[in-house]
């Protein structure tokens, strides 16, 4: 596999998946990857590379290293109350410290999942204990969508019934998760 920018052997392959479109693939050698992260490509005519550079910076920031341009945010000081990992520990190692990190660093976790997987919502198997809750959640989602349709159709009477059903399901969910 050859680097897209020079003819050296490529060691880094990046797939960019955005908005469910077909992924784009970039092959880079180590030198070009480093150059692309930290140099400006204002003279570079190729728009594509600037786009790649932005993504590469983001990806590397989320996953491997602190990007040089990043400013300190209050979250950088925060540590997971369960395992003590900071988000900077997680980006350095590319590994979460425990299951609690995913809720304590919810936004960052979601972003890293979006960057690495192109999706954030699990649709697969659910553990036995959570199956009922998942069903209620899905039901609420379906009813909410239906509700929007009814409102557009100005069928307020049916909409009101559905709204009450949603409310009831939400209450049931709250009771279930307590």
């Amino acid at each position, binding site marked *: 596999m050859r680097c897209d920018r020079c003819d050296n052997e490529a060691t880094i392959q990046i797939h960019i998946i955005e908005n469910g479109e077909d992924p784009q693939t970039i092959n880079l050698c180590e030198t070009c990857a480093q150059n692309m992260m930290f140099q400006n490509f204002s003279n570079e005519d190729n728009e594509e590379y600037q786009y790649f550079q932005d993504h590469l910076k983001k990806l590397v920031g989320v996953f491997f290293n602190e990007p040089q341009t990043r400013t300190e945010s209050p979250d950088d000081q925060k540590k997971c109350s369960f395992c003590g990992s900071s988000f900077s520990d997680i980006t350095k190692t590319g*590994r979460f410290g425990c299951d609690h990190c995913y809720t304590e660093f919810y936004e960052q976790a979601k972003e*890293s999942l979006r960057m690495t*997987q192109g999706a954030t919502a*699990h649709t697969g198997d659910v553990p036995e204990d959570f199956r009922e*809750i998942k069903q209620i959640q899905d039901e609420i989602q379906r009813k909410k969508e239906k509700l929007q349709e009814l409102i557009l159709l100005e069928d307020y009477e049916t909409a009101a019934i559905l709204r009450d059903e949603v409310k009831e399901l939400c209450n049931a969910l709250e009771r279930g998760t307590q």
Partner: protein
Amino acid sequence: MPKWLMHGETREEDVVVSSRVRLARNVKDHRFPNRAEEDEAFSVAEQIYGAMQDKEDHYRRFLVRDVDRIKRRVLMEQHLISPDLIKNRAVSEYYLRDDEQMTLMVNEEDHLRMQCLLPGMQLRESFLQVMEMEKKIEETVPFAWHMEFGYLTACPTNTGTGLRASVMVHLPALKYSQQLKGTFDSLGKVGLVVRGIYGEGSEALGDMFQISNQRTLGFTETEAIDKLEKITNSIIEQERNTRNALITHTPTMVLDGVFRSLGILRYARVISAKEALQHLSHVRVGICMELFPEADIRKLDDLMLHVQKYTMLAYKHDTKQKETEDEVRAQYIREYFNKEESYGKR
């Protein structure tokens, strides 16, 4: 001979050597192995041990640190355990089923990695077996779970289903006719990834490639398996068509390739793993072409596993041979082909 290769019927074995499905899981409210102190890792291992109690008849438990250094690498070469499990040997362990088709790795990158490895094209069977094991363990061990993200893993690339399905495919004709790049580029577009025979970052040897799903979020386990199966079927067809075209248009060249390789394997005195695998790949094509109607393709696949570095070193050690690894390998292969009458007389 690795037992996993020998059990059960196989399908599409002219192209698909093996199918594997693995699930990654972590135990709720415990630090992941990269963050856990030894005590916590041991406590996780004990929980898994508890869940495995009623399966003791069919499974054996091994602590990685107690397994001989070379033996560990042999298990890795035979795809029974992973490099990360060896790296974490202070706290890692594994359970191996009698037929060696199912392995549970404990304290690898995640607390638990369950894998089912079957010969030939058996993705679905492999998936069913691994899911059954997962459900069994889940009865007593609560797994790390998030309503939105699914099963939580140390690396975000496994979060969601935690499922990685892969097939090991033998693609000599596509490689020879330089069609691999096109084929592999299109795999990237549908979220699949190609690797060498030892997984990530490894070199493709003996025209063997491992194709697996890249993503674990946004689709179900069954969708992931279906997709890999569908794409693999199309690769099988491409490879077969290309083999047929080469045999039709350049029969002498193909025959020359197969028999020249057989000759080298039969007579070489020094041979590296890489070279041996390349020639064995050619002989494998010969078996698929029915040039050696009596030859057993699974025995050849087994030989391909045996000629690898650590398996050979273990053999050299066991047989107390003084020669170099490459000499021992050449002798091992010579003996194999001299014993096997299915490849014709010398």
